[in-house]
């Protein structure tokens, strides 16, 4: 007998239970998915959906990728958890792979993106204290999103303004997005770090200008502060390179990853360059679950597939194909992003939320991060046919909504 409960409740009953027992923190789309394979999802009624969201860039290899399923199944049958009080091979192999493929320093594992950023914030503050800074500051761009735990939340200007959740942590400030001069001005003797999403995801897919990235790197070099890239959404191949910084003119000192890293298993990682590798010492940080064998095995399987020049080139090419097709649609004002991380700015008068709901009805899963923006984060494994189908569904929906 299977230990997994049968999924036979139906949407109405699932919604009723959700409203009765779950905290009201999410507004969910009106569908209960029960199965996924590749770029497709199916609901309880057997209706098929093309998934251009992938659980917010988590299932980047598509749903239930055979390599990830096999890694999870095999590792779960052998060893699931021992804690970080002991050595486990999948964790150290994953750390080696992450370090070698990026900044070359050390790795701290977490269970999510926000936790990975908490680690980066700790590194920045301790690094600053070592430089004699008693009240270190972390500078970020307005409309950055770094997470919902208190450190990451305090570095997320839009959410940190929610006074009902206050007080926030001290030592965070922000400057307007892409304002290189304001960034230079904000970084000074008390700056611990500049924390940047190279392409802002939650605000609607907004790439940070190269001029602003260069200014951040220069300001950090001059002040001794660390440059931290939050690659939680941009990393693991999403933009057409393993890490988004590889397509920028700078190299960060610290990088955080999560989302796609585990292929659906919860895992986060904070990776340093050698110069910041020795900042955290025994007792400074920890986690019971992080770097567990199953999540690490899944992440190794993901990297084995994604860190392939052919796949990454295809991500860039399909991104270009999708971008070109989107720009040809009536109702699309602009397309932002890189690779298969795409923000679609809609013409004035088009309600993105209503369009998103309509698309879900038509069988295309997308996200609406802003009132006039759609966010597309399809699997990196899609083909040109999937792109055509998404463009057709989107085009049909836009025709009915164009003012």
């Amino acid at each position, binding site marked *: 007998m299977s230990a997994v409960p049968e999924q036979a409740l139906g949407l109405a009953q699932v919604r009723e239970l959700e409203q009765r027992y779950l905290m009201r923190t999410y507004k969910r789309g009106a569908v209960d998915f029960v199965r996924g394979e590749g770029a497709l999802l199916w609901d309880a009624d057997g209706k098929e959906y093309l998934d251009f969201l992938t659980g917010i860039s988590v299932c980047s290899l598509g749903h239930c990728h055979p390599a990830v399923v096999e890694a999870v199944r095999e590792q779960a049958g052998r060893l699931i958890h021992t804690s970080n009080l002991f050595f486990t091979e999948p964790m150290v192999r994953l750390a080696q792979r992450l370090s*070698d*493929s990026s*900044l*070359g*320093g050390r790795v701290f594992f977490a269970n999510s993106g926000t936790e990975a950023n908490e680690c980066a914030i700790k590194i920045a503050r301790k690094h600053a204290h070592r430089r004699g800074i008693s009240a270190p500051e972390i500078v970020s761009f307005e409309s950055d999103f770094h997470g919902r735990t208190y450190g990451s939340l305090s570095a997320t200007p839009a959410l940190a303004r929610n006074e009902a959740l206050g007080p926030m942590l001290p030592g965070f400030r922000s400057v*307007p*997005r*892409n*304002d*290189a*001069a*304001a960034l*230079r001005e904000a970084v000074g003797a008390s700056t611990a770090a500049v924390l940047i999403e190279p392409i802002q995801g939650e605000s609607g897919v*907004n*790439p940070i*200008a*190269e*001029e*602003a990235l*260069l*200014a951040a*790197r*220069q300001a950090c070099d001059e002040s001794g502060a660390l440059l931290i890239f939050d690659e939680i959404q941009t990393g693991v191949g999403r933009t*057409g*390179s*393993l*890490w988004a*910084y*590889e*397509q*920028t*003119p*700078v*190299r960060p000192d610290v990088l955080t990853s999560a989302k796609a890293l585990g292929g659906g298993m919860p895992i986060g990682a904070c990776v340093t*360059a*050698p*110069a910041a*590798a*020795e900042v955290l010492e025994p007792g400074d940080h920890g986690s019971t679950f992080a770097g567990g064998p199953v999540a690490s095995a899944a992440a190794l399987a993901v990297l084995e597939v994604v860190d392939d*020049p*052919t796949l*990454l*080139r*295809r991500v*860039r*090419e*399909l991104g*270009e*194909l999708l*971008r*070109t097709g989107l*720009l040809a649609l009536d109702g699309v004002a*602009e*397309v*932002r*992003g*890189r690779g298969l991380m795409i923000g679609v700015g809609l013409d004035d008068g088009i309600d993105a939320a209503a369009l998103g709901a309509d698309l879900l009805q038509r069988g295309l899963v997308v996200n609406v991060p802003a009132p006039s923006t759609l966010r597309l984060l399809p699997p990196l494994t899609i083909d*040109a046919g999937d792109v055509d189908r998404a463009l057709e569904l989107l085009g049909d929906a836009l025709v009915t909504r164009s003012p």
Partner: protein
Amino acid sequence: MSRKDRSGRHDPATAERVTSIIEAAERAAAALIDSADANAKRYLEEAEAEADRVVAARLEGMIETTDALVEQAEAIRRESERLLETVRRTGARIQPDGDGTAPAEETPLSRGKHLAAVPSGPEPAAEDSLRPAPEAPRRSENAAGARLLATQMAVSGSSRKEIEGRLRSGFEIEDTGAILDAILGPED
């Protein structure tokens, strides 16, 4: 005060007391000298120990710095090997103008649209006119940024054409040949 007899000499008791006072003074002086010697020796030892500590700490710092430099060199070596591997793996696969799976031919129209789709400059804002113009990056910073961009893109598997496009659009470098040749080798 000692007492003298009529001949002017000190009486024996007085002389004995004077002698004992002088001896006591000499002992006190000797003790003072011994104490001063001991203090000086201790101060000297402490100063030597402190100097040793400072030297040791600096040596440790130098060793750490050296280790960090070695690690950085090792990271660069690993990345260079990854670049070479990438170039080896993709060399046979990458055709000069793509393999037909993508929008292979970039027409002037699609190129223009692509550029519009990926803004690289600061977004306009209502208060922009009130703010001083952003300071432009220095020329050397730009050049170093362009080289790093090209290197990182090559490491991540980007083609010569892709890197060339980014150098032109992001850095307004018209003659990209020197940078590309230095990183990818001369074009056949």
